[in-house]
């Protein structure tokens, strides 16, 4: 049996010219409505004071984490992490609770407030273009990039490539591949000349956040059962009290009517 290689994106901020071809390509490929997007630009804009200026932008979509927080936060299992990279979302299972939105450290999943529960598909995010990658094409954002700021390939190879590029021009880059270890590793890797936090990326520990949160979350079911028992007891007590009170009132009225 052949080993399934994990695939990833590599984004090089030194090459990104903020042209937004990736955003348009994604919108067309995935038929995204005109008031929505799955790719964003973040960064420092123009920083400094004329004429000592710096500019840096990053495009990002779902980071396709190895340990997806969206997935661990989802109470109904609507998220899946595939062995070859993609974190996918199943709209049929989604109940619209938006826990994933709060859980994601990158602010990626977006809730569609225009749609009701019946219409479904509440959350919108990058799919990794399965219709393309399983048909021998690169994801839409990658293929169109006029400056190869976005690349696609096997994650191990991209990590090697990223380090090689940094080593070749150490003054051109910060010596770090974001996403190699952050949050336990992601399938969207970033190299940059601008500090990563200034590009808008959170400082995340190497231990996935959800390794901690999952332990807590594992407690929720026993806790919920226990809490449920307490609540049931309280409800029963309240009910009993109400019935008694009702009975008393009925008796009172009966007294008055005499």
């Amino acid at each position, binding site marked *: 049996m052949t080993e399934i290689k994990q695939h990833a994106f590599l984004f090089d901020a030194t090459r990104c010219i903020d042209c937004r071809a990736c955003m348009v390509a994604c919108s067309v490929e995935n*038929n995204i409505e*005109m008031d929505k997007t799955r790719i964003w630009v973040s960064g420092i804009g123009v920083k400094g004071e004329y004429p000592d200026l710096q500019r840096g932008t990053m495009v990002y979509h779902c980071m396709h984490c190895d340990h997806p927080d969206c997935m661990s936060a989802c109470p109904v299992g609507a998220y899946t992490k595939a062995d070859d990279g993609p974190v996918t979302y199943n709209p049929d299972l989604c109940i619209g609770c938006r826990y994933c939105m709060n859980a994601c450290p990158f602010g990626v999943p977006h809730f569609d407030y225009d749609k009701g529960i019946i219409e479904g598909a509440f959350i919108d995010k990058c799919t990794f273009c399965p219709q393309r990658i399983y048909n021998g094409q690169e994801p839409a954002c990658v293929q169109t990039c006029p400056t190869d700021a976005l690349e696609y390939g096997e994650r191990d190879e991209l990590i090697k490539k990223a380090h090689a590029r940094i080593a070749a021009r150490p003054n051109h880059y910060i010596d770090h591949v974001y996403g190699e270890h952050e949050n336990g590793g992601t399938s969207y890797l970033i190299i940059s000349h601008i500090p990563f936090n200034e590009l808008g990326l959170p400082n995340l520990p190497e231990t996935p956040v959800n390794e901690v949160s999952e332990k807590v979350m594992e407690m929720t079911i026993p806790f919920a059962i226990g809490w449920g028992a307490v609540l049931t007891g309280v409800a029963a007590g309240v009910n009993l009290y109400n019935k008694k009170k009702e009975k008393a009132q009925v008796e009172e009225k009966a007294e008055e009517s005499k």
Partner: protein
Amino acid sequence: MTKTISRRDFLKLGTASVGAFAVGQMLPPMVAKAAKDSGVLNAAGDGHISSMCEMCVWRCGLIAKIVKGRVVKLDGNPDHPHSRGNLCPRGQSGLMNTYDPDRVLTPLIRVGKRGEGKFRPASWDEALDLVASKMTEIKNKYGAEAMVFSSTHNLSQPLFENLLYAFGSPNYGTQRSLCFNAMIVANTMTYGMEEPARIYDDKLKYILLTGRNLLEAISTSETHDLIMAIDRGAKVVYLDPRYTKTASKATEWLPIKPGNDLAFHLAMLNVIISENLYNRGFVEKNTIGFEELKKEVSRYTPEWAAPLTGISVETITRIAHEFATAAPHALAHNGWRTSNFVNSFQTQRAITILNALIGNWGVTMTAGAGEESGTLGAPSQPPYPRVSALRLDGVPWKYPVVPFKIGVFQEMRDNIVSGDPYQAHGWFISRQNPVMSLPDRGKTLKAFEKLDFIVTMDIILNDTSWFSDVVLPEASYLERYDPLVPIGDKVFIRQPVIEPQGEAKSALWIYKQLGERLGLGDYFQYKDEEDYLRQQLAPTGVSLEEIKEKGFAEFKEISHAEEAAELAWSTPSGKIELYSDTLAKVGFSGVPTWEEPPQPENGQFYLLTGKVAQSTQFGTQNNQLLHKYSDEPRLWMNAQTAAKLGLSTDDWVEAESPVGKIHIRLLATQAIRPDCVYMTPGYGHISKGLKTAFGIGAADSVLHVTYTDPISGGQALSQTFVTVKKA
């Protein structure tokens, strides 16, 4: 995260009346019949078709994905040298031009007053008969020269030229004098060619960009080349009063004072010559006029240039040293929209000569592979009638060195207004938007008032069609054939990937129909579009079927690139002309010389315009996908200057020039010189037929004053000065 494009930005479209559709919800499908017949599409209308982009003039190869007869995605064609598998945002959005809900899908005839925008739909027969009868009437009454023609760089231009030259008019306007006349004329005078090709190989070490904002005014393959050169460690020095996205990637950004690029380059020549840093062998063998040049530039020292440019003596000297040291692996880029000041021709001459002095020919520059159709056949046609009337654009009687085929567009407009040397009565405008592109919009509208008849050909009701008497709906570039174009040893095709929507027709069809109605059928000897292409291919041995399938074909006989690189220049002397006798004979300086540019007075700013990656000139602002990802057009002003004027970002301001005023929102930014303001052209539409773009931003053409460079005929687009105050 701090998003520079936030989700909120997208609400602007969601709330707009145009509706927030995804592309897939647009018009009903139209299967490309030819593609289906040839088996490229299956019975359901699914498949992939190769063609060519037309979102700008770079013409990338594309592969259109067709599902049920609808184009759903465009990808770059990896086999095409201009796209290499990539497309820029405009190329990616191309299908939205085709599926624009504002498309004009039937011929229109004006019923209201001009500019009221009231039209009635008409049949092709009625519209074409009307156009032909009006043109004939004008010809009979005032002569063929009273009919002026204009069109912008495109593949069907040879047929457009057939139409006007066969009709007998000398009056032909192109967009070039609003763009790169300075560069073209300078290269022609120096190298005997319009634009040498640039070579970005692995050895390229030094790139000098003079206002060539290559990372925003994207030419897909060259933009890629530049980024890869930077990646390999090449040094990029970028001159621009604005901190553009290109500036941010350059090794060194020099915010030069507008109009003084000439001083910078003259000083470069001065240092390189006075310190003997030039390639003596190359110069002696391949150039003429070195001594005249040496004498002229001896007075342009870095000390002289520093106060003019705002760049220090040390920096100018160092860059000259670095450039010469990197030779021959150095390149001084001419730039693209090069007509900025009336001295821009001299700037362009200085740049071309800078390259010649370091002998980078055949290393970083070469003869362009060219898009000449000489290798292809063409339908036979009779010679054009002799025309004796003067051209309204002053070529050559006022502009002796401007080539006929590029002309001086703004002068033609001016002389429609003045009626001198004769009065024009009709204007045929194809794929062009002079109301937006020509300087001084008020004057262009005045020119319209002088005309009995205006006909335009376009895919949408742009600002110029809005003022037309007849609008002929052209098929979009995804719906039609265009004449084939060779690039190097390959020939590429633009073919319909879907059938034209509504009644839209190809230019090849429209020009032929009109030609026949004008009694000029002999100039259009082809049955239909495919027949025209077959006649083009006849001498090559390549079949149309072959080229349709792959999107391109290789010529059986390969033209040798080496031959093109051989050191022969089609100048009068056969050498690179540092001194041009042609220029001297008509009274201009034979060598590049200093011409002092005008300066803004107190309280005035240089008005700069430029490109963004999400739009092309004046024709793509109504594309919903580009609109979605564009920044709101603002007037940029240096933040410190704005603070002094009590202005801040988002303020509504009034900008006023000697010819007009606009209202626009301000962007206070560090990214521009304190003495400049900047705006992105292409906004501030008059036409209410553009429902996405209407009401957004303001038009630079309202403000631009017409100043023409007497040598190259270029419109000086940065020479307008404005005042700015709170609206």
